[in-house]
């Protein structure tokens, strides 16, 4: 698990109820919400002003209620690469995930709003994104796996290895995977090594780089 540290956070969410809930949740966890806004333009302005560790943004916001949050996020990735961007949405859309992950998946997250209900996991995901890691919803990962052109490579994995791969793609560390599967870290390490060999990916100690390799593999 990532060590808890106080993060400076900007929130963009047009539903007042949910926005206020988020502010409270983050404050509860010891983070500092420097701005909580309701649309994409205000998000861009707030990030430019506060230079936060991470921005949490809804995808569907006024005025068109389609993907303005996503477009703002892509702009943030370009102009403020040090700020992590965690997208929250009621739906997971394959194309949106692809656009968000295009180029560089470091410091990016895409979760269903439901995941906020599992407070500890959400806090962990936020910390990962703030630290330059990745946090993808299990649904994003399952869509990536299904849509992947490497069906043969994936078929070579055992069911357990496939579970580990999915958790890796979500952006979790070895310790996080071990906790989720209720196994020891050593077992996870063995699975990870085996997966990387079967898929022909370079072994890597750093969690982040390994995640990126897996995502590139699935997305290519």
């Amino acid at each position: 698990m990532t060590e808890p540290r106080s993060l400076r956070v900007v929130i963009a969410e047009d539903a007042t109820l949910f926005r206020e809930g988020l502010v409270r949740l983050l404050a509860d966890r010891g983070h500092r919400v420097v701005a909580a806004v309701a649309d994409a333009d205000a998000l861009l302005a707030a990030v430019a002003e506060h230079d936060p560790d991470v921005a949490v943004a809804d995808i569907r916001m006024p005025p068109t209620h389609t993907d303005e949050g996503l477009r703002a996020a892509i702009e943030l990735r370009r102009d403020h690469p040090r700020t992590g961007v965690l997208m929250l949405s009621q739906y997971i859309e394959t194309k949106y995930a692809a656009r968000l992950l295009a180029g560089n998946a470091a410091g990016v997250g895409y979760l269903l709003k439901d995941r906020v209900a599992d407070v500890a996991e959400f806090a962990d995901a936020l910390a990962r994104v703030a630290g330059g890691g990745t946090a993808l919803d299990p649904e994003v990962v399952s869509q990536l796996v299904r849509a992947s052109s490497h069906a043969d490579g994936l078929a070579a994995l055992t069911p357990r290895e496939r579970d580990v791969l999915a958790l890796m793609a979500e952006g979790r560390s070895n310790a996080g995977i071990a906790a989720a599967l209720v196994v020891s870290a050593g077992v996870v390490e063995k699975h990870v090594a085996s997966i990387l060999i079967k898929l022909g990916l370079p072994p890597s100690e750093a969690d982040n780089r390994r995640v990126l390799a897996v995502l590139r593999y699935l997305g290519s």
Partner: protein
Amino acid sequence: MSTTGPVNPLAAGRPPGRGPGEPPGPAELRRAGGSLAVLTREAVRAPFTVRTLRELLFCVIEVPLGLCVLAFPIALAGLPLAVSLTTRGAIPPAGSSRTHPAGLIPVLGGVVLFALLALLLLTPRIARGLGAAHRRLAARLLGERIAGPPPIRRGRGAVGWLGATVRDGAGWRAAAYLLVKLPVTVGELYAAFFAAAGLANLTYPFWWPLFRNHPPGVRLHPVSALTPFGALHVATFPGTFAAFAAGAAMLLAAPWAARAVTSADRWLMRGLLGPGRLAQRVADLEQTRAIAVEDSAALLRRLERDLHDGAQIRLATIAMNLGMAREKLGETADPAVRELVDTAHQGAKDALIDLRNLARGIHPAALDSGLADALATLAASSAIPVELTVAVPQRPAPAIETIAYFCAAELLANAAKHSYANKVVIEVAGRGRTLMLRVSDDGRGGADPARGSGLSGLMQRVRTVDGDLEIASPPGGPTQVTVQLPRRA
């Protein structure tokens, strides 16, 4: 056939407002209580109103336009005549080969027959053109705006083109108008004559003394003045007053004659040059149906938006709060309370999933950014691998996108349930005015709309916008379903 040529300059050279504006309608006249003075004033003014001048102008132009149709029988009769004359001239002098003319006549006869047949077959199209000219003239000069008939159906190839022409009801009705209108054309000629000759007759007393001032005793031929009852022979100066009176009477009668014939012509045009009652009804139904289809798509979109902004966000907030409560309870709390909170937390999360699926079934939100985005998620969520290609250069109407999306979803679900396929291919292509969706799989085939309600339901849905659904699914496979939709509902 172009009418803009003759009509434009005429409209531009609209008679200056010599009369005191538009005359009152019949109702106003009646309201005047039949006051003789008012009636007289109106009768005297009538020839000089803008309306009368426009109607007279209409009559003047309608005469040659209406008589155009006579070119048709002349052509029908004249063609064989001309050919027979040519043939007779072509008979070579005696002594030359006799087989030549014998061979020539059937050929020429064939040519004539072909030309006549072609002319007859083209009648609807020619009549449509002439009808349009009449309609435009009436719109310009009489303010009688008649909607045109629906365009002639497009046939494929020469045979289809000819078939569409021959079956063109609106074209034949226009031809009927041109024929029935002939007596009205004579009336129009009369109205124009009333005005022109009436005006001429008025001038007799003024020029008579200038030109007829011969010494007494000189015998001159009488001058004739034209009236509807024949020529009036004027031999003396007092006689010119009779011509003047006849002219005044004709000029006063001209507006009413023009009004009567133009009214008759309008009535004929409305009946025969309009879209026709059935075609109008079809057009109305098409329009209202398109509105209904678009409305229902918009309603579903609004419903999804309301769910998204209302119930879904509330439930997500409840789940978040329960999650926080669960953490705060910690290990020390009463196990019964913990269990209750856990159950509520899990229940809220489950309800969120249900609600999300429901909302997606009502209207997938990604559809607002286009078919490609929405179908990508659909394809990625499928149990069978899907190969998706979307090439839609111009976005269709929202209602059409919705129908296409749900067709793809239903067909994909069908393939997953029944086909035992290893792979599904979804293609979407925008071609001109249609949107094509094709879902094919490598499964065992045998899809039959008569057995499953899914396919027949799809067919009904597609037909609400005049779309088309084609199923090719032989037993043993593969299955290919092609949906064609118009780009607009």
